[in-house]
């Protein structure tokens, strides 16, 4: 029949033995560099896509609905210590704050910032470690993540709010000087929310984020249609792989 070799490979027996089913995706219970499977794999004859190094999803990350994204983020919380690579997050936030330092006209002191998709607060903490005077608010669609955020950050002065997909963000127009999205934009964020991020960003405020496993031209087209301007790739993180980049864009003067 079809003579071409398919790039969709079966997983090794070693990885299969470690797979745990959670909802309709799989998590590899044992973590380690030698346990990273191929980007696309077949499990029981069905196609799966690797997400982070240890989760296999039935759809590529950018095709997941918001409900699915929420479920995966909750699994990520459950396996937080194993799944989340602190060093990787830290090095990405270094590049993101480097972009702010280079592109923001004023020194980032006492700036109001939004951490979009803040999860349980790791990204917010990493941002504050580097820009201590940020007045930071986190938002996320996961109740579990926000509950964990509030529990872990209760002695610190960072706010966090739960938001819902398809609803406006609970902030005034132009409320923020900066918007960050750290390990978020590989998901396909709905256009209403992208428009909201532009609305709450005071011109010429910067929206800075990292993205990987996604066509950046398509994302740039979405941002442009949501009303952002000056859409740039700030740095290609070639040492990380997966087409990982840090991008920025601005809210245009109205």
């Amino acid at each position, binding site marked *: 029949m079809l003579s071409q070799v398919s790039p*969709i490979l079966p997983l090794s027996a070693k990885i299969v033995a470690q797979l745990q089913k959670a909802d309709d995706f799989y998590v590899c219970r044992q973590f380690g560099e030698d346990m990273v499977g191929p980007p*696309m794999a077949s499990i029981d004859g069905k196609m799966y896509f690797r997400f982070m190094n240890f989760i296999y999803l039935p*759809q590529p990350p950018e095709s997941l609905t918001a409900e699915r994204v929420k479920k995966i983020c909750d699994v990520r919380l459950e396996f937080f210590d194993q799944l989340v690579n602190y060093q990787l997050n830290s090095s990405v936030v270094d590049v993101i704050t480097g972009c702010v330092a280079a592109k923001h006209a004023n020194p980032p002191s006492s700036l109001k910032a939004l951490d979009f998709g803040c999860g349980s607060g790791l990204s917010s903490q990493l941002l504050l470690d580097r820009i201590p005077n940020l007045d930071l608010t986190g938002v996320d669609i996961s109740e579990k993540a926000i509950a964990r955020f509030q529990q872990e950050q209760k002695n610190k002065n960072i706010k966090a709010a739960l938001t819902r997909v398809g609803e406006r963000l609970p902030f005034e127009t132009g409320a923020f000087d900066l918007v960050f999205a750290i390990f978020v934009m590989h998901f396909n964020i*709905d256009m209403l929310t992208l428009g909201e991020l532009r609305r709450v960003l005071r011109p010429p405020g910067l929206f800075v984020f990292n993205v990987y496993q996604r066509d950046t031209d*398509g994302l740039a087209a979405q941002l442009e*249609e949501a009303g952002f301007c000056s859409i740039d790739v700030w740095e290609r993180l070639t040492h990380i792989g997966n087409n990982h980049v840090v991008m920025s864009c601005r809210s245009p003067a109205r």
Partner: protein
Amino acid sequence: MGKIEYDILSCDSRVDKTEEYLCKTVNEKYSQEHAQQILAALDMAREAHRDQLRCNGAPYIIHPMRVALMLLQFDTNTISKILIGALLHDTLEKTGIKFPEIDARFGSYVAKLVQFVTRKHNESQSDQEKTEAKYQNWLEVIAGSHDVRMIKVCEDMDNIINYKSIPKSDPGWKKIPRWLSETETMSLPLAQITNSEAHSVMHQEYDYYVKSGFTDLTLIG
């Protein structure tokens, strides 16, 4: 203007009604600037396909228009450039339009989307070669982006929905079993990884053909 009755998931060869419904939907959803671009792409596609017909005898332009409408039905996050890509999706493969024309008129992202869903195609290919070429393109689409996959899913969906309207006298009718085999091995898995709702609708269509005996035309021919 009254409400336009249009069911995108049924066979429909009424070009005027389809266009009316598409224009209405586009004008409601997009800004004036983006709607103008989309309608300019529709004009370009209409002109390029003007002498071509679908297997069911309908003017060819109905297919890109329906693909665009399906994108709007299944993916609320469809930006104007994806819709433009959908309207032009067959122009590189089936008309004289070339990549630089699309690039110059609608930008590199639209041109790239169209190129992604274009397969190497010529009339002298054997059935086996055609299926191989489709499979190669399928692998590229899978490894492409959500936008590319979504256009391809909607393209496949419109083709599948319309098999039943192909008359027995058309050479296409005899190809239905091969196309259904490609639906099973390529279109359905692609839809499954791209959009659950589209996958479910496509599966129902596929089941209809299987139950109606289209996988072996000797039984119904």
